[in-house]
């Protein structure tokens, strides 16, 4: 594959990624940035269900 084509591929990827984030933001519920948790978790209250690939099914509240 020629470098120019790779550049095009990379550009398409980043444009698609940006569009994905923007579209997701537009569809998401309103976010209050002043209601965010502290900058780091250490020393704060535990947050359940933050989402990790190792988290088992029982790690957070059951399905509705």
């Amino acid at each position, binding site marked *: 594959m020629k470098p120019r084509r790779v550049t095009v*591929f990379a550009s398409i990827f980043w444009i698609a990624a940006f569009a994905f984030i923007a579209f997701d*933001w537009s569809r*998401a519920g309103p976010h209050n940035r002043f209601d965010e948790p502290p*900058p780091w978790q250490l020393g704060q209250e535990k947050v359940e269900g933050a*989402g*990790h*690939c190792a988290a*088992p099914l029982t790690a*957070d509240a059951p399905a509705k």
Partner: protein
Amino acid sequence: MATDGGSIAAIPGDGTSSVRKDRARGLQPYAARVASSPLAIAAVLACLAITWLVGLRQGFLFIVGMGFGAVLAGVSFGFTTGWRVWIRDRDPTGFLAQFLAIGLTMLVSIPLIASHEELSGAIAPLSVSLVIGAFVFGAAMQIADGCGSGTLYKAGLGNGFSLAVLPGFIAGSFLGAAHLDRWLALGSLPPVALPEHLGVGATLILQLAALGAIGAWLWRNRKKTDARWKGRAIYVGAVLLAVFAVLNLLVAGQPWGIVYGLGLWGAKIATWLGVDLAANAYWGREARQVHLNSSLLTDVTSVTNLGLLMGALIAANVRGNARPATDASGKQWLVAVITGLVLGYSARLAFGCNVGAYFSGISTGSLHGWVWFAAAFAGSFVGIPMRERLGLKS
């Protein structure tokens, strides 16, 4: 396909030789070149935007993710490659660097988690799905020439093969999580957090001894030490990875992960297409529904993934190797898409990839990390010959 060398195989050269060339040419220091990169300005703007829109924690996590990406690309730190280079050439360098990173992370993470209940480890059940998923993932990652992190950031560099793998990876991660309850019904033992059973000191001694013993055995049976990496750059990279992994734990409250974010992206796309996930055993859970209805910028794994992409792009541009050449046949493109699907699906059955299960599992004292390691390594012995039969050998 012209790419070789694992997750960054397509990138010619290695961190050490690159640094040596730079020094020899008397080029400006690496940090100054990073700072003067237009991409660095874009990264700062992205970080400010995330902080402004979502909050300081997510801004910090974007920076941590950039650190991961910069290290991975900067020294060509490849999990997949490290295993393949040992299996194929009996070169233990990649393995030893991985063990160094895991060991250092473990030394800080396990005591921290034990003394701070607000911090969580990557602790997962010992299930049949774990063994099957890790074995399949180990084989598939050798065919795809990259694990979760490698596929992600190589796609960001414009590697065509990884770009073909990534959509399948996202779809597979979503589907694997959606089917996880059925796989767990095959049989599962509870999660085992070693520090809870053995204590912090004994866990550290036991795990460090295990890593040391395996490392010593690999070293004693080496045939080469320069098949892929030369010099100390990869070990410096390992130390830096450990630093960023600990920062990730302190800021996010949980260890470094990749695949949850990819699955969440897939689940979001599915809901946009009209799929109702409210009744699904995994995506229907309250916390997952909150994530599905919030911006992905509020998800810690997604933000570190985005940072990783940006950091890798900057590092690769500074090194001058951000356009990895890829040349594949039609059949190989199809293989890439299918392999991506298998990678994502199996990673969810196995409760993570090289990062979420192997790196973060072991470094936070989860027994499932060791099971994952054994099964995925066995799978790599299957995947490497398959890769060569498919014509993906360098």
